[in-house]
């Protein structure tokens, strides 16, 4: 049946009707507040006294601010490490869990626990685990002849320790996404590949991975957006230190807004972060659209 003009027109209408409720809500609670932030970034504002107009001077100041540039660098280093490790690790764990072995439910719940645990509890736990003097990590590493390491106390190691902590905290989240996606792979597809003489690795590479690519794209984009905004875990452990080694963008932003009362400047930082994130996401989605395999 050839779609007539009427149906084509109604597809546009249907599309907009479907997205309307969500769009209205997100415009109200997402877009409008961001507009306020844009205005704030053009002001000298400490949220206490009356603001003064700054024009673009906050942005100009940012361009010359070495601390800002350092925080951008640290954020990108963190993101580039966090995303592949957590997404790749989650895939591995999801494959391990995608089976009928005993205690599987227990394992799945266990993997999910860190995701459900509050950041405060996680911070205390890691502060203790990685304490250079009293922590278990150095104790165990000492048994195999390594260490002792400074972890959160060493400016050269702190950021990597944060990567480890956040991977631990978020892995379970990615795992359940992958588990759900693995459900979507029909067993007969795998059987057909086996019948065709494919090896397990070959099946994995050429059948399973492509079929998981929509989930992978989702996780990569989502993890990137989150990694660029990492804050809570740093706040409960290193507080941006030592020697600012873990002062990432949102931490710098938070400091500017709420410790130094430069809310306008912080808003400018937020918008630069927004642009960085947008660029990353658009690139990833564009690459994804070309390489992701949706079912036929």
């Amino acid at each position, binding site marked *: 049946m050839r779609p007539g003009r009427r149906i084509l027109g109604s597809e546009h209408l249907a599309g907009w009707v479907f997205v309307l409720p969500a769009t209205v809500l997100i415009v109200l609670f997402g877009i409008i507040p961001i507009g306020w932030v844009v205005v704030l970034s053009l002001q000298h504002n*400490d*949220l*206490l*006294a009356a603001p003064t107009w700054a024009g673009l001077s906050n942005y100009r100041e940012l361009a010359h601010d070495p601390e800002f540039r350092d925080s951008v660098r640290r954020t990108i280093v963190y993101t580039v490490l966090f995303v592949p490790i957590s997404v790749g690790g989650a895939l591995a764990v999801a494959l391990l869990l995608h089976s009928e072995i005993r205690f599987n439910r227990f394992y799945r719940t266990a993997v999910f626990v860190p995701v459900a645990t509050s950041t*405060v509890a996680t*911070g*205390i736990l890691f*502060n*203790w685990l990685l*304490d250079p*003097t*009293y922590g278990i990590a150095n104790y165990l590493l000492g048994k195999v002849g390594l260490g002792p390491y400074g972890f*959160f*106390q060493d*400016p050269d190691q702190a950021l990597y320790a944060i990567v480890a902590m956040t991977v631990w905290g978020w892995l379970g989240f990615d795992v359940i996404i992958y588990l759900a996606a693995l459900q979507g792979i029909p067993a007969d597809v795998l059987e057909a590949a086996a019948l065709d003489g494919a090896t397990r690795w070959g099946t994995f590479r050429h059948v399973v991975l492509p079929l998981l690519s929509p989930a992978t794209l989702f996780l990569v984009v989502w993890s990137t957006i989150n990694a660029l905004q990492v*804050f*809570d875990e740093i*706040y*409960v*452990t*290193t*507080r*941006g*230190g*030592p*020697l*600012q080694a873990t002062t990432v963008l949102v931490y710098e932003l*938070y*400091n500017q807004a*709420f*410790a*130094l*009362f430069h809310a306008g400047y912080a808003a400018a930082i937020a918008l630069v972060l927004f642009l960085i994130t947008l660029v990353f996401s658009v690139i990833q989605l564009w690459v994804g659209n070309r390489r992701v395999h949706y079912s036929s």
Partner: protein
Amino acid sequence: MRRRLLLATALVAALSLAAGCGGGSGGSSGGRVNIVLWHGYVDTEGKAINAAAALFNKTHPKIHITVQNYGNSDYALQKVLTAIRGGSYPDIVYLYGSWAANVARTPHAVDLAPLIKSDPSIHWNDFWPAERQAVTVGDKIIGVPALVDNLALVYNKTLFRQAGIPYPTASWTWDDLRAAAEKLTNPSAKQFGWAYVNDASEDTVWRFDALLWQAGGDILTPDDKHAAFNSPAGVKAATLLQQMATVDHSIYLDSGNDNYANLFNSGKIGMLFTGPWDLSQFPDADYGVQILPGDQNHQTISGPDQWVMLDNGDARRKAAWTFLKWFTSPTEAMRWSLATGDLPIRASETKLPAYQAYVKKYNGISTFVQNEANALKARPVLVDYNEISQAMGQAIQAVLLGKAQPKQALDQAAAQVNQVLAQGG
């Protein structure tokens, strides 16, 4: 004053936007004025504030005060900021002393200077000098003292006995501190002589400030226009820290302020520079309290917090002032201290009979009270103070981690501070 964790918050008092200016569910009803107070008290202090409010309401029928817990005091300022923006805010709020200069910038904060001048019944000079300095921003006075504390030397008597060292005396010097810390450090037992908060926050800085003042130095020049902490006195103080941390290895560097108290309680740390708020965390340690070891003097540092009044109109302002006068009067303040263990906020409280009971109840507290007389200098009450603090904190942290030399680190911080001050805040 200790800092705790978590994200920023903001709070608004009431829902009556439709009703116009709600003003924190206060207002008048039939001749009685309703006022609202926000605080961060929990537990013992929480019970005490509720009891105080009840007593006040009973004895002052024309005023009714409602006390509300706003969560953690760390976020009080953000809550107040949002509340002010929302047009609905309390009459009295508990705020940290370090925010005084910033709070003074909002037109909603009541300047108490005229009230204090015209109303001698507040006995303003009865408050400790450090408290009065902390609430004075230029010509304005933006709060009534709520809490005062200071840093003293808390030591583990058991560890001292085991190491065969006599307990610290009131005439201890820095050399005594260093020698004792070395003797108390035992790497195989994972025991340290001293603990220092090394997260580059104000917690790191204010301990250093005490050392700086003891060596005769100052944070800023008298006109508040240039840094002065990189003077020889400052370098001397920083060098002490450097030597103890990187040469003697006698300091446990806490990356936050969570661990040292538990470690002290577990008998792993010999000495602390800390305040009365920590004492309840040492149930297992046989501790003693002494004034800080000194250099040219034994000065200490005080960290007062205050009750800030926000303007909700004449009637409520008057009612709030009445409450604060009552609440900080010697009798009520002493009642509070006895219940909570907080230090007396007025010098005259030490003469009250209840003071004896107080000193008996809280082991070691009398030294802290006496030590308040050593709190002669205060940190600058400036809008830019937090930037100054961060620059100094980074410098001290670098020195303690062995990543910088004292003079260079302090000079670098001073250059940063001078730049900030030159920009006029």
